[in-house]
């Protein structure tokens, strides 16, 4: 004969079990609430970097590798406790110090300028974007041949993100005024025309990225892949519009 099971009335449950249930339920809710709060507060800001000389000294001769590992450490800083923290929470003054310090450790690398122009400039805070443009300008002044591409990107950041056309034109002038000995494609020297043209943010970006890709200046396969993905995204946005 098949046994049937039916639920009894809740009053049949001993009252202390009900109390235990409420206590543990409240405990769970309280714990979860406190934990969420603490994880929010526990976001740690970037610590200021040491002088570049110290990093070179502690690298045991692998200073270039250390510079990249430090950059990755900075890159990963916005991922804390399994959460992605918005760039708005980052201290961009300290971030600028990091990028400039790392560039001193490894002056031949384009990575810090790349992060400034393509990664950390994607923040909805004009003061922070301005700091990244300052970083790019400083790096450009140190090594124009290496960083002119980032400078052209800074022009677009100033025009479209900061709505500061005069500043963008000044930056474009710095590129145009570079000595002829520094090899640049013609479009980089003519950035002023790109800026003065009535192009939207996406149209300008499309023009800049296509020109960069066609120029053959970019040899790093990771950057090529990054720019191609970016171009595809921009083209999709433009085709929708």
């Amino acid at each position, binding site marked *: 004969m098949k046994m049937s099971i039916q639920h009894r009335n809740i009053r049949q449950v001993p009252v202390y079990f009900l109390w235990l249930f409420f206590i543990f339920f409240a405990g769970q809710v309280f714990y979860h609430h406190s934990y969420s709060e603490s994880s929010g507060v526990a976001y740690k800001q970037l610590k200021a970097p040491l002088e570049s000389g110290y990093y070179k000294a502690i690298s045991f001769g692998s200073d270039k590798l250390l510079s990249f590992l430090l950059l990755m450490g900075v890159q990963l800083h916005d991922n804390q406790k399994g959460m992605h923290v918005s760039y708005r929470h980052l201290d961009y003054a300290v971030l600028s110090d990091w990028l400039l310090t790392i560039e001193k450790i490894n002056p031949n690398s384009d*990575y810090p300028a790349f992060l400034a122009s393509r990664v950390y400039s994607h923040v909805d805070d004009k003061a922070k974007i301005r700091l990244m443009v300052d970083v790019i300008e400083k790096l450009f002044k140190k090594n124009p041949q290496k960083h002119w591409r980032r400078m052209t990107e800074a022009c677009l950041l100033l025009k479209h993100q900061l709505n500061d056309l005069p500043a963008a034109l000044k930056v474009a002038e710095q590129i145009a005024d570079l000595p002829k000995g520094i090899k640049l494609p013609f479009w980089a020297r003519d950035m002023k025309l790109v800026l003065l043209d009535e192009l939207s943010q996406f149209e300008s970006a499309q023009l800049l990225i296509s020109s960069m890709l066609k120029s053959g200046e970019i040899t790093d396969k990771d950057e090529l892949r990054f720019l191609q993905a970016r171009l595809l995204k921009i083209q999709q946005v433009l085709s929708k519009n």
Partner: protein
Amino acid sequence: MIRQTIALFRYQLLGIINTRVIILLCLVFSVAFVGSQFIAELAILNSDDIALAALADFLRYSLVILLIISLSFQVSQDYESGQFERLLAMPLSRVQYVLAQFTVLLVLAFILIIPLFIIVLLLSDSTVALYWAVATFLELILVGQFALLAIVSLEKLPLSVIFTFAIYLLSKSASLIELALSRSTPFYDEEGSFQLILFIFSKISYVLPDSSYFAQNNIFFESVNYGGILSSQFVSVIIYSAFIQSVLLIDFYRKEFN
């Protein structure tokens, strides 16, 4: 004489190379490869170069640690098991023992760099792989001789391993110490103790290897004259090896085994 040295070398080498060491090597190479691929995933630019440089550096330090421990352990066993007394009772000179140990070091370092060469070759080109393998081989020879000197002189395994690491780290961090001292000079320039430290360090640095004695990891990020830096490292290591071997022989001949 040569036959006896070779026999001793074979005996010593077989004591070092065993299944556990091979398994450990496989594990180290696997961890290095997986770790470097993880780093490559994190990098937005230059991911291949960064991964290769990280892998090469990790393997270099792992092999140095493995070599120091293996060599020191083998010689310490000779001390503990009374092997020296037996060896010296045979028609075998002390210089033959040192020569056999040096040959063990050469062969062990060569065995260790073969997989290193293969893995770097798979991830890069033959020039880079050859440079890194030869430069790491020279570094292993240098550190291995530190280890031999330390274990022969100090006789105890933990003490000699710590001493070897200390000398290795001191050589590698010479620039850090110089930087720290130069930054401290304005504050302590007039103090006698500080002047003494400066004097001691400047004298010690004469008998310590500097960065040119070791494999240069920066070659993974810039084009260099491989022949130039390798020949400079080779000459430095040869001269320093002769110096260490002379110290080792003097110390070994002064030992009395009862």
